[in-house]
């Protein structure tokens, strides 16, 4: 176990937060038949069937992406708590998270056909992709340096 107590705590709390988020996505999926009509009828103020079906599709595709991204994040945090930090498997997980975020962002942009509000979520997601990719680049540099250090006898 690492001696950095602060980092251990951060990882633990992030893990709990991730589990809560996964639970929220499950709830969102279960209650989808209430939430999607609410968004379409009340927020978007559209009363046609096309908007409802379209937004439902966008909604469920989005939650599917969220599952994959959150599960990858959980695995990443699990690795970190096991002290496997600068490892190729972690950069792979970050790549999965980034791809999921891009797909969810595109999903949100498509969702604007039914309700314009999804563009805000899309913007946040695209920004998040940049953050994740930056982190991934940092990790890759660190892995390179670690390899060099490991081969210094």
């Amino acid at each position, binding site marked *: 176990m690492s001696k950095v107590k602060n980092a251990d705590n951060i990882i633990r709390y992030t893990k709990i937060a991730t589990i809560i988020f996964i639970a929220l996505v499950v709830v969102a999926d279960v209650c989808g038949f209430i939430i999607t009509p609410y968004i379409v009828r009340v927020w978007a103020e559209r009363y046609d069937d096309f908007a409802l079906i379209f937004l439902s599709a966008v909604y469920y595709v989005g939650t599917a992406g969220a599952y994959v991204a959150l599960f990858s994040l959980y695995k990443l945090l699990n690795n970190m708590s096991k002290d496997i930090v600068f490892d190729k498997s972690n950069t792979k997980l970050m790549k999965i998270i980034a791809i999921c975020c891009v797909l969810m962002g595109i999903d949100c942009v498509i969702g604007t056909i039914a309700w314009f509000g999804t563009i805000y979520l899309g913007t946040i997601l695209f920004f998040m992709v940049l953050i994740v990719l930056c982190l991934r680049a940092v990790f890759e540099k660190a892995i390179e340096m670690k390899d*060099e250090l490991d*081969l*210094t*006898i």
Partner: protein
Amino acid sequence: MIVINLDVMMAKRKMSSGELAQRIGITQANLSILKNQKAKAVRLETLDAICRNLECQPGDILEYRED
């Protein structure tokens, strides 16, 4: 490229890799990395310990070869 001729020197001094590793204070795995030319760098500290234990000069272990 720089070649590490540790095998030759160890054979001359009749020292096994296990013994040398123990004397220098590195693991046998690291010593084999050194012997198999996979190492990217050698600490002066390690070189010092090797030379002291094999009673030789760095030039006896390290050799420059044209690629």
